[in-house]
């Protein structure tokens, strides 16, 4: 199916659940609210003419700097191996108590990227077997890929980088 056909079919099947659709550069993109995600995901996987059986990726985006609501977004890239077509689901997530239901019941491959969603953005994934840190250490504070998380540098004892050097000289004069 072409991207237009996929979008049209979904619009007709879920007039109330799909918030919006788009076709940027020919990709099929649908916008879904978090509470309708599982309903739409189940249909996408099971419908014989769509059959999105392969989950490519789940990724989070923090739209803090942009003037838009809601702040977070989870993006699901799906692919159908039999029909060789793809779709992207964008799920907007509110800033207060950000949470999204899991899709790992449909695609086991979602387990890791969803855990990463919690680790990097602090988005709680409802129904996920492990809502804990994946890449960062367990005791880490803050969610690194949020836009309000500062980009900092680590102090090192020696560096050829001029900025590091000047900092070091100010804080601790080198002793020989």
């Amino acid at each position: 199916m072409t991207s237009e056909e996929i979008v049209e079919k979904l619009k007709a099947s879920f007039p109330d659940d799909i918030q919006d659709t788009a076709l940027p550069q020919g990709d099929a993109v649908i916008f879904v609210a978090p509470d309708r995600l599982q309903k739409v995901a189940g249909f996408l996987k099971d419908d014989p003419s769509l059959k999105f059986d392969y989950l490519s990726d789940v990724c989070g985006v923090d739209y803090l700097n942009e003037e838009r609501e809601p702040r977070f977004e989870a993006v699901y890239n799906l692919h159908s191996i039999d029909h060789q077509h793809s779709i992207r689901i964008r799920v907007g997530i509110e800033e207060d108590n950000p949470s999204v239901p899991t899709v790992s019941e449909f695609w086991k491959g979602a387990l890791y990227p969803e855990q990463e969603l919690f680790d990097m953005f602090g988005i709680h994934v409802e129904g996920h077997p492990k809502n804990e840190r994946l890449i960062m250490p367990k005791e880490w504070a803050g969610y690194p890929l949020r836009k309000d998380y500062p980009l900092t540098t680590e102090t090192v004892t020696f560096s050829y980088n001029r900025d590091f050097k000047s900092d070091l000289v100010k804080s601790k004069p080198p002793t020989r």
Partner: protein
Amino acid sequence: MSVTEQGLLERDKDTMTLNMGPQHPSTHGVFRVILEMDGEVVKTAEPEIGYLHTGIEKTCENKRYVHVIPITDRLDYLNPPGNNLAFCLSTEKLLDIEIPERAQALRVIMCELSRIASHLVWLGTHALDIGAMTVFLYCWREREMILDLNEEISGVRMMTSYIRVGGVAKDATRPWLDGIRDFIDYFPAKVDEYEKLLTKNPIWVDRTEGVGVFTREEAINWSLSGPALRASGVNWDIRKSKPYSGYDNYNFDVPVLKNGDIYDRYRVRVEEMRQSRIIIKQAMEKLPGGDFKTPDNKVSLPPRETLHTSMEALIHHFKLVSEGISVPKGETYVPIEGARGEVGFYIVSDGTNVPYRVKLRAPSFMAIPGMCKMMEGCYIADVVGIIGSIDIVMGEVDR
């Protein structure tokens, strides 16, 4: 947390907890897996990652598009051109520019050479893990030739950064083309040599056949990709299904096998090396002339000699060097077939010269839960074989 708190030393249970990694040489980097053992049989395998986390995605959000390309080299460090290409294709889709045919052919040659190099590292280390030392030395010998070719074209042996937004870094040189011609004549006999050592070797077959089996449905559901998926009987290669960089102009086969065990993954990858050589051969035969990067001066630098005579060129040069490429607002994802499977960058642009969000879809990262699922019920000696057969690279797992 101490060892006792984690339950590693509990004596009043039937199973034993065994820690493997992150310093274990057969985990191919810093991958840690906690195995719950019943005698010699693995009951559960709990992966633990993050030891190589360097915050690459966060770094990319604070660098210009041009500066991101050398960082992408460090993700999957065995197949850097694949990552460069994935990033450039996503950026070019947002920019909506056409890439000259010569640049596309050079990209294909570079990617396929690096796929061979990556598979050679995989074959060597995988065989070494299972106990075949000789293959390792032979594979390194051939990989060295590819690294020398990389040095000739880009000045660097591994982190080439050769593929750039709008084309490639520089045009093909005569010694590089001659070197590739020598290599494609030399290489097939060497692949036969590896196969002679392994394919019918009874020890190799005993250790790999029927071990770490994943059915077609499981492999799809657990998001395996690339050779590991094709060994389970799924005929899906992005070079064929969604051709990019002119892959539809080349005539090659996609090896697909049914059993989904370590042996089939081995055979798929060995055959892929042969097919990659065929693609390089075709690309060399019909290497088109013309530009090696797009003539659009908003994306690629104008030729040096025009700066003295053309004010337009001087302005473009100044803007590109001081500001970099500005990418129109939007979001996109372009998957490509890397050496390990589907690689793609999900890029969100806010219209400036710095990407708003860069997310790598890493095949190794997505394969880890499935790989640990595969280990359940296997013997402990097969765990290293399974890790080797999925061919994980921790650089792109932890990012």
